[in-house]
């Protein structure tokens, strides 16, 4: 287990605590016994179940958050030093506090006035006659109080730490603290000791609305003792745990016990305080003390249980969890007006809470995630909140060129080559430059460069899986490359305007079986600006007799002919034919070849992939050989053939195969019936030696290697 594993888990815990806050506020209007006017809306379908859910989540959600915050505070302090720590905290805590308050407070005010007006049947209730004067320091911090308290606690911690280090010069005291922490965690006593300061401060508080636990200090800039002690303990303990990170692993084992403890303590608390909130202070007495202590135990049991469970189940990096973690800060900051507005909207509808509560949650979370995705993740707001600006998502734009992205830390790095350095030549109809494409773990293209020149027929050859179809798919705009550029007529293939001058025939496609051949041609032709007429297409592809037959009733070869007809019906300037003649009989293939030649004669550029090398030999102006996602050779058919200098010698001879196989110039010998076939690098020497060894050699024939041999040889070298 490495340090980063732990951070994934704690990241998730922090996100969980924040999102739980959204749930808490989303359920608030459904609390049983909620006094109208306390919250923006008092729903007409209250629920005890929601009461219990909210009560439980509210016990620990903020303490859990401050615990993780303390842990990360020390981590950052260790990594960046005091100066870096404060710079970072100013940007990520202070700025959101100030900017967030200025924006959110008016919004909250509007939603609250709207909601309370609606709650009281259309008129805002008059304020009570004798409003007590505001105590000094009164200020509506709203739910952003936690940022304020973070800052206050950071200051106190830094001062406390400085004082501590001044006293404890030898580190002796630190050793004692570490030992105490270790002992209390491994024995589980921590869950009983840590609540003590909080319990005492809560007990001492005169006006304690016990149902809501640690008082929410959102009304004053003067820190409240109970809140400061409760959250300060949590943060301090988080800080101390970071001193001994291996302690996190203890909760990994303890978490089921802690969970049971948390549930038990919560049950005890609920039995004292009741399922619904009481909006009166708790009277002093033994019950108050017992309740305060049980509440503190519940806080810490839940905290340890959740941290332990996260360590157990969420230590592995997970893209989705990470996304939500990144989003959670933004979501928590801005959720309150959104959630409250949803509550106000549904508050008076005659629906059951089990419908309205999920609805409020789903609608507001969808909205909040949407705002994160489009307003935050890739903008300066994300830069401030999460310290990082993510590049825009692949799906959302980008016209071809793209960089590799490391999924874990999001640090972008440039692709292998520098595509802009090599510009396409002016007569290029289509180009691929340094194109990389992966499907999961499979590399389809690894830096492919390919050009289609004006008016040429380019045959792309390669074994199965070499990347031919992927290259064509990129040109057709079906995918975007992982890296590199793809261009058609100097534009992007993603642009439909560009593709209106492209015809295509793909492998393995099923067309609409119920439509007739004529109708398929009409439909496809409608996509193009100036297509051939249907009758012209039928004549050109010799499909007249099949014009009114449904596609489903055609043979495999006839279907291929129809697909060819669809490819050419738009009078394309550039045509992609992926294995066009598979399954055709000899006549049909000859006819298609004639049509292809006619198109080239009229200036159409064609990219053809094929497994039939004689097809490439018969049609291609240029051949490109692709292997393992790269271009390994390109040139005219003759040039490619000459790449292989070897020749084939056939003859009838009495010499044995074994004997000839020992000659140094001979690469391979085979005998079929009475004839011997010799493959040789230097044919002339072999022939001379052959004639010398056997005067009765007959039927001697020397032949240049064909495209097939050249192809085999080239791809063998590449493999």
């Amino acid at each position, binding site marked *: 287990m490495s340090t980063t594993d732990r951070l994934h888990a704690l990241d998730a815990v922090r996100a969980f605590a924040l999102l739980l806050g959204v749930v808490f506020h989303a359920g608030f209007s459904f609390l049983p016994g909620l006094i109208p006017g306390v919250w923006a809306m008092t729903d007409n379908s209250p629920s005890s179940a929601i009461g219990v859910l909210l009560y439980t989540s509210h016990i620990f959600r903020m303490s859990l958050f401050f615990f993780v915050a303390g842990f990360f505070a020390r981590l950052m302090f260790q990594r960046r030093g005091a100066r870096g720590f404060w710079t970072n905290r100013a940007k990520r805590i202070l700025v959101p506090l100030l900017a967030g308050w200025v924006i959110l407070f008016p919004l909250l005010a509007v939603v609250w006035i709207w909601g309370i007006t609606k709650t009281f049947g259309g008129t805002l209730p008059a304020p009570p006659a004798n409003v007590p004067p505001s105590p000094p320091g009164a200020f509506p911090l709203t739910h952003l109080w936690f940022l304020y308290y973070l800052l206050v606690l950071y200051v106190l911690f830094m001062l406390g730490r400085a004082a501590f280090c001044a006293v404890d010069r030898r580190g002796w005291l630190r050793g004692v603290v570490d030992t105490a922490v270790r002992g209390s965690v491994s024995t589980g006593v921590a869950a009983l000791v840590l609540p003590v300061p909080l319990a005492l401060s809560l007990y001492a508080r005169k006006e304690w609305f016990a149902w809501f636990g640690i008082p929410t200090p959102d009304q004053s800039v003067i820190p409240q003792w109970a809140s400061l002690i409760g959250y300060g303990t949590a943060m301090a303990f988080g800080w101390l745990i970071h001193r001994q990170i291996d302690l996190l692993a203890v909760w990994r084992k303890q978490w089921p016990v802690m969970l049971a403890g948390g549930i038990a303590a919560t049950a005890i608390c609920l039995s004292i305080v009741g399922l619904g909130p009481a909006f009166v202070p708790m009277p002093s007495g033994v019950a108050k003390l017992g309740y305060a202590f049980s509440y503190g135990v519940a806080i810490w049991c839940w905290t340890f249980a959740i941290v332990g469970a996260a360590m157990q189940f969420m230590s592995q990096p997970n893209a989705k969890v990470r996304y939500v973690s990144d989003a959670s800060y933004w979501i928590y900051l801005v959720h309150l007006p959104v959630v409250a507005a949803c509550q106000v909207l549904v508050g008076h509808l005659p*629906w*059951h809470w089990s*419908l309205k509560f999920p609805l409020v949650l789903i609608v507001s979370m969808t909205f909040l995630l949407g705002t994160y995705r489009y307003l935050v993740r890739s903008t300066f707001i994300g830069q401030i909140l999460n310290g990082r600006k993510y590049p825009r998502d692949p*799906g959302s734009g980008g016209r071809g060129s793209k960089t590799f992205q490391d999924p874990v830390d999001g640090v972008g790095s440039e692709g292998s080559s520098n595509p802009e350095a090599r510009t396409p030549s002016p007569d290029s109809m289509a180009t691929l430059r340094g194109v990389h494409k992966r499907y999961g773990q499979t590399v389809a293209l690894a830096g492919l460069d390919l050009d289609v020149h004006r008016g040429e027929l380019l045959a792309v050859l390669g074994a199965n899986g070499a990347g031919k179809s992927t290259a064509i*798919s990129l040109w*057709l*705009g*079906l995918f975007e490359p992982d890296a590199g550029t793809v261009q058609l*007529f100097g534009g992007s293939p993603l642009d*439909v*305007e560009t*593709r*209106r*001058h*492209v015809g*295509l025939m*793909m492998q*393995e*496609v*099923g*067309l*609409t079986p*119920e*439509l007739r051949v004529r*109708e398929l041609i*009409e*439909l*496809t032709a*409608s*996509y*193009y*600006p*100036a297509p*051939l007429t249907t009758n*012209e297409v039928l*004549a*050109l592809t010799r499909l007249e007799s099949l014009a009114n037959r*449904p596609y489903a009733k055609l043979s495999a070869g006839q279907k291929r002919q129809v697909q060819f007809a669809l490819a*050419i019906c*738009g*009078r*394309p*300037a*550039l045509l992609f034919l992926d294995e066009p003649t598979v399954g055709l009989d000899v006549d049909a293939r000859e006819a298609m070849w*004639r*049509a292809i030649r*006619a*198109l080239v004669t*009229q*200036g*159409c550029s064609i990219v053809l992939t094929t497994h039939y090398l004689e097809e490439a030999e018969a049609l291609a102006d240029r051949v490109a050989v692709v292997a393992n996602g790269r271009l390994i050779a390109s040139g005219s058919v003759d040039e490619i053939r000459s790449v292989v200098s070897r020749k084939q010698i056939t003859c009838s001879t009495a010499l044995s195969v074994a004997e000839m196989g020992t000659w140094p110039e001979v690469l391979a010998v085979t005998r079929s019936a009475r004839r011997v076939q010799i493959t040789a690098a230097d044919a002339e020497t072999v022939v001379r030696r052959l004639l010398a060894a056997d005067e009765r050699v007959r039927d001697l024939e020397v032949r240049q290697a064909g495209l097939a041999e050249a192809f085999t040889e080239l791809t063998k070298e590449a493999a």
Partner: protein
Amino acid sequence: MQALSSSSLVDLQTSAAMPLMRVLRAYGAEAKYESLRMLRSPAFAIPFLLLPVPVYLFFGVMLAGPAVAKNPGVGTYLFSGFSAFAIMGPALFGVGCTLALERDAGFLKLKRAWPAPGGAYLIAKMLMAMVFAGMAMIMMIVAGVAAGHTQLSASQFFILAAVMIAGAVPFAAIGLFIGAYTSGSAAPAFTNIVYLPGLWLSGLFIPLPKFLEPWAVIWPAFHVNQTALGAAGVSEFSFVAPAISAAVLIGVTVVFGGLAIRRLARHG
């Protein structure tokens, strides 16, 4: 070939833009052929076009006779409910299952590579659902008038039919969603999971048990029915304001359609 010597096979003016009329024609052709091929598919056309009317006449007219005699408004409500039933099938199955099958066949890849105008294929499927809804509504109105069990005026029939035809769109969007995420063999099963409970639990034909009543609002069929009844001014069975129901339907369309488009744009 010889016959074509006059006409060029290749158009080398690659910068030429497509005239607007031709773009619109492409949308039209796509919708026309999508509807045509569904009509030609008997396994689809017969159950969804011809079944609703006999079902309505049997359950909504003959068996419901006593209930209608007691409260004539019930007849109107049943007519509206069976109309919703009639438009749901073609929209859900015709869009969802065909889309899933076409994805399986690699047809969608081809559609994306062709320079079809943006969304033509999806819009065509939606329009197909509306064409079928229109045909179903014509037959339903003929049956409804003939049976004489409704209290609707001519203009109310018209409004109800118009809402029902538009109401096919959210179901088509759900169909797109199912078709975009499931395989051809799984799509009918998933569609039925939405279709059958949605039909019964939305309270279109039969009174729901008390505890299920508040849950009727989660089914789009309920909202189509409510929008139609509300817009046609049938107040007796209007439980939700038609504006809210219509907003729900628009939301359903946007959410499911959006998810489907997102998926199709990335995976094909």
